[in-house]
C-alpha cells in the first residue's frame, strides 16, 4: 500500500484551486471570485476569462473584500475571497470574526502562499499562525489540502457546503499523489495501514510523512498514515481508531506548533485517549527568506525530522 503512494507530476496546490474554481464557474452560477490584486497568483485567469461578470477585483483592500463577500452571501451568492494566507487571515481577523463568522455567512476564504514554502518573500508573508486563528472562530470549517488534486476537490466541496470556510493552500511545486482518494469535508483519509505508530499530517507535510514512512519501513517500522485535510471539524473517530491500535502518534504540519493540527489532536487525546505524542511543527518562530525545501529543513519540517519524531515517540511507547 505504501508503494502506491507515489507521484508522476508535481504541481502547486494553488493550481488545484485554480482548476477547481474554474470548474465551479462552469457548474455553479452563484459562485463569485474576488481577489485583492492577486488574481494571477491565485490562478484565477481562466475564471476571469470565461466568467468576467462573476469576478470582482477589490484592489489592495482585504478588509473591504471580506465585507463585500459577507454582503454577497446575503444576496444568495457564494463568494470565494482570495489572496495570500497572511492577508486573508491575520490582516482581517476582526472583519472575518464579526461580518463572517459571528454573522454565519457563507463566505469561502481561499488563501494561497501559506507557510514557509512561500519561500523567498520571507517571514512577512509566511504565515504560520493562520490555522490556529481560523479554527478558533466558532462555526468555521478549516481545510488544509495536501496536494493539487486534493485542493481541487476541496474547492468543489466547499461550494456545496453551507457555512464559512477557510481553505489554505500554497505556492511550491509539490508531488501530486492523492488521485486514488475521495475527498469529503471532515473525513480524514487512511492512506496506509500500519501497526507501530500513527503519523497524522496535513498540507504539504503529508508528503514528508509518506517519505518518512517509506524510510522507516526499511527499518521494520510500520507506520499508519493518516491525512487530516479538515482541521476543523476534526475527524475524531478516525484518529481515535488509529491511535487506539498503534498507541503512539506523530503529527506533522507546516504551521506553528501552538494552535495547529498537533494541538487539536493533543486536546482530543488528552481528553479521550492519552498517548505518547510528538509534533513536527514550527517551534514559536518566524520564518525567513530561502528556498522552500531549505526552509522546511531549517525549521524542523523535513523528512528526517518526521523520522526522528517517530523514533522519539516509539521510545516513549
Amino acid at each position: 500500500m505504501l508503494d502506491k503512494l507515489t507521484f508522476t507530476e508535481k504541481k502547486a496546490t494553488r493550481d488545484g484551486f485554480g482548476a477547481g474554481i474554474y470548474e465551479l464557474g462552469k457548474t455553479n452560477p452563484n459562485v463569485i471570485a474576488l481577489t485583492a490584486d492577486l488574481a494571477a497568483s491565485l490562478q484565477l485567469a481562466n475564471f476571469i476569462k470565461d466568467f468576467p461578470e462573476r469576478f470582482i477585483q477589490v484592489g489592495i483592500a482585504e478588509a473591504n473584500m471580506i465585507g463585500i463577500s459577507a454582503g454577497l452571501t446575503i444576496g444568495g451568492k457564494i463568494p470565494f475571497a482570495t489572496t495570500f494566507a497572511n492577508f486573508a487571515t491575520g490582516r482581517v481577523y476582526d472583519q472575518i470574526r464579526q461580518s463572517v463568522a459571528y454573522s454565519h455567512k457563507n463566505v469561502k476564504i481561499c488563501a494561497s502562499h501559506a507557510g514557509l514554502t512561500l519561500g523567498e518573500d520571507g517571514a512577512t508573508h509566511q504565515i504560520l499562525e493562520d490555522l490556529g486563528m481560523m479554527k478558533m472562530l466558532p462555526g468555521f470549517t478549516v481545510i488544509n489540502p495536501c496536494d493539487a488534486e486534493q485542493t481541487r476537490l476541496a474547492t468543489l466541496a466547499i461550494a456545496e457546503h453551507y457555512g464559512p470556510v477557510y481553505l489554505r493552500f500554497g505556492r511550491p511545486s509539490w508531488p501530486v499523489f492523492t488521485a486514488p482518494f475521495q475527498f469529503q469535508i471532515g473525513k480524514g483519509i487512511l492512506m496506509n495501514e500500519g501497526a507501530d505508530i500513527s503519523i497524522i499530517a496535513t498540507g504539504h507535510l503529508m508528503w514528508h510523512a509518506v517519505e518518512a514512512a517509506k524510510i522507516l519501513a526499511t527499518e521494520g517500522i510500520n507506520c499508519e498514515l493518516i491525512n487530516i485535510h479538515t482541521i476543523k471539524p476534526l475527524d475524531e473517530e478516525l484518529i481515535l481508531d488509529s491511535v487506539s491500535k498503534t498507541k503512539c502518534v506523530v503529527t506533522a504540519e507546516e504551521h506553528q506548533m501552538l494552535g495547529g493540527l498537533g494541538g487539536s489532536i493533543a486536546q482530543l487525546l488528552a481528553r479521550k485517549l492519552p498517548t505518547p505524542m510528538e509534533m513536527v511543527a514550527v517551534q514559536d518562530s518566524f520564518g525567513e527568506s530561502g528556498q522552500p525545501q531549505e526552509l522546511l529543513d531549517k525549521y524542523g519540517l523535513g523528512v528526517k525530522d518526521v523520522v526522528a519524531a517517530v523514533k522519539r515517540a516509539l521510545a516513549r511507547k
Partner: protein
Amino acid sequence: MATIQELERIASQIRRDVIRQTHFVASGHPGASLGCADFFTALYFEIMDHDPKFNMDAKNEDVFFLSNGHISPVWYSTLARSGYFPVEELATFRKINARLQGHPATHEGLPGIRVASGSLGQGMSVAIGVALAKKMDGDKKLVFALTGDGELQEGQNWEAIMFAAHNKIDNLIVTVDYNGQQIDGSNEDVLSLGDLPAKWAAFGWYVIHMRGNDMGNVVATLNEAKQRTRQGKPVVIIMQTDMGFGVDFMVGTHKWHGKAPDDSSNRTSTGAVGGNTGRLSLSLRWCHAPLSQCRYINLSSTIFYNQF
C-alpha cells in the same frame, strides 16, 4: 404616505423607546440613537420598500445596514414599531438569553438584522456586497447604510468608498451621522475629519447635505437621494444631527454616547414637549411617580411599550 406630523409622532415614540431600553439595563448608547431617530423613522415608515416578514436574502426589497452598531436601541425600536418583532421584546435589550444583543447580531435570529455590527468600519463594505448582488440579479431595489462620523476614522471605510466609486455602485445610499462627537470628545479634538463633504466628492460620490433632526428635510433629502441613484455614482448624505436630540439634558454632548440615564438622576427636561416638534418631554423622577401620572414613560416597566 405618512404626513410629517405622523412621522414626528413616531420618532417621539422611538425616542421614548431608546430611553426606556437603555435605562432599563443601565447601559447602551442613547446619544446618537436619539440623534438618528428621525432618520430611522423616515427610512422605515416612508422611504424604504421593505418587508417586515423579513427575508434574509432581501430580494426585491430595499435593505438597510447599520455600520455604527452601538446605536442599536434606535434600530431595534424602529424594527419593532414597523412590525419586525413584538414591541414587548424591546424590554429584553441587552439581557441574557435575548435576541436584542448590545450590538446588532444575526446569531440569535432577530428579524431585520442581516449582519453583525459593532466593531466599526465594516458596514459599508457589506452594503456594497449586497448592492453588487442586486446588480448581478437585476434587482432594482436600493441599499441603504448608516455610518457614524467618528467611525470614518477606520480605514476600511475608505477602501469601501474608493471601491464603490470605481465600480459605479449607484444603487447605494450611505448616510453619515455627522454629529461631531465621539467617545473621547469632539471629532475635531480626537481626529479631525477635515472637509468631509469634499473628501467624499473627491472620491467620486454624489454628496447631499441633510438636516437630520428636521423631519421635513429628512424626508425630502432621502427622496432626493433616491432620485440620484442609478446615475453612475454612489450617493452619500452628510446628515447633521445633534447627539441626544429630543432630551434636553442629553443634547449636544458626547457625554451620553455610551451612558444610560439612571434612576438617581435628578435631571428634569426643560425643553419643548412632545407632539409637533417631535421632541420628548422627560423627567427621570417620573419613574417613581404613580403610573397614572406617567404621561410618557414608566422606566422600570414593560407595560407601556405598547403605549404610543
